[in-house]
């Protein structure tokens, strides 16, 4: 049954973000702020970088603020972080990504000013940005969210989000797939991967895909076929999931931007589940020195090794 989700705090959150942005920009604490602003269509939102205190009034927070802005602070987008201390508006899931980047020495905590957002959820699709946020229109990642209220930020508005108890969409789908035979799973993924057009939107939008040269772009030796055809597609998606294992923060941007609607985050969630079971690792707000696949213990499970 479709039920609306309480987003009444978002107006107060918007006001709080604006006041804080105004203050830190005019005091010169930061040189710029990455946030969300209203776009041209009614109800829509887009990322914006502001550097003038007057522009603080442009900032908003609505259910259409889907983007993970952490990607603008990575190496892949070199221009922005160079201009001094940067403010950034982050939801809980985005903050997990930023913590991951700090753990991988891509960012320094002292170089960023975190404006955390109490978030009750965002839309799955912004095709109709003015849609009301309901249990149907909410992004699947928000149904499994444990980070409605970011912690450890420099500023968090005082509002508390009302977390609705929702059916966990990824967990249910993973359970369904795990119950199938390998041949059935292969058929499922073969169909999904065959849709891929190799646009690499999933890679470009991912905060963790910051390699200067991607393994999948190299052609000497060519490890992954670059053409959008079945073998190369399958290899790309397996390699992508493997490279994000133990790092993915679960912002599900890959899945949101995929023009062919491939359930990419399903692979990421599955890997997260396995890492939780094997090495008790979960993406969180804490900055870890080493990810689960960069470390080891002598007692790690080796029941699969002869």
């Amino acid at each position, binding site marked *: 049954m479709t039920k609306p989700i309480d987003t009444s705090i978002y107006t107060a959150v918007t006001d709080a973000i604006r006041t804080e942005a105004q203050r830190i920009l005019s005091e010169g604490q930061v040189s710029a702020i990455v946030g969300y602003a209203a776009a041209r269509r009614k109800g829509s939102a887009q990322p914006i970088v502001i550097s003038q205190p007057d522009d603080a009034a442009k900032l908003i927070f609505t259910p259409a603020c889907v983007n993970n802005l952490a990607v603008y602070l990575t190496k892949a987008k070199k221009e922005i972080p160079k201009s001094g201390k940067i403010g950034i508006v982050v939801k809980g899931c985005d903050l997990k990504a930023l913590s991951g980047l700090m753990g991988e020495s891509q960012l320094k905590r002292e170089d960023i000013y975190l404006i955390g957002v109490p978030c009750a959820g965002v839309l799955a699709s912004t095709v109709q940005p003015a849609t009301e946020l309901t249990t149907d229109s909410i992004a699947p990642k928000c149904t499994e969210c444990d980070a409605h209220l970011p912690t450890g930020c420099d500023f968090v508005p005082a509002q508390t989000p009302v977390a609705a108890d929702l059916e966990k969409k990824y967990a249910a789908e993973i359970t369904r797939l795990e119950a199938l035979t390998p041949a059935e799973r292969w058929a499922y993924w073969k169909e999904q991967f065959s849709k891929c057009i190799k646009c690499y939107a999933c890679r470009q939008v991912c905060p963790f895909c910051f390699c200067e040269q991607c393994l999948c772009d190299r052609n000497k030796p060519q490890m992954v076929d670059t053409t959008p055809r079945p073998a190369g597609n399958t290899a790309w998606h397996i390699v992508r999931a493997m490279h994000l294992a133990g790092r993915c923060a679960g912002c599900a941007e890959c899945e949101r931007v995929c023009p062919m609607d491939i359930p990419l985050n399903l692979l990421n969630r599955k890997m997260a589940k396995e890492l939780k079971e094997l090495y008790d690792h979960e993406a969180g707000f804490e900055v870890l020195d080493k990810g689960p*696949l960069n470390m*080891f213990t*002598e007692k790690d499970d*080796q029941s699969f090794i002869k």
Partner: protein
Amino acid sequence: MHSEKQKHTFEPKIIAFVCTWCTYAGADLAGTSRMQYPSNVRVLKFPCTGRIDPVFILKAFQQGADGVLVSGCHPGDCHYIAGNFHARRRFAVFRKLLEFVGVDLNRLQFSWVSAAEGGKWVEVVTDLTEKVRAMGPMTEFKELAMEEQWSGAIDTPELKEAYNQI
């Protein structure tokens, strides 16, 4: 000394990624000790199991391997101190990923074989070869590759009829 050669209808291709310090030396010992093991295995030597990228396994399957063996030093014996510990975690996770995508894990074997374990090498290789032989050829990745070619699968009735008329 040589046991009588048995004829099989299917000879699987097994790719073995091995570490140079332990398993390669172990395989060498099996050879110099004149132990017999299936010639289906193609050994690829790496400095360490930590050097073996999961993408190599993927590539092997894509290029027509029916089974893959990854083998290195026992935990604690790594020439580079911790390479095999890292590999152990990486492959534990990679296995789970392949399983989720639908690859039969019986085709993928991991083992620790030290330089003194020529006998264990023979045992591991024989077991995997026989297991894969019983399973038949690995078709999943080959079919994907075939789909990439114009002359690939003839799957529509019209095409099949036209082909049969030639």
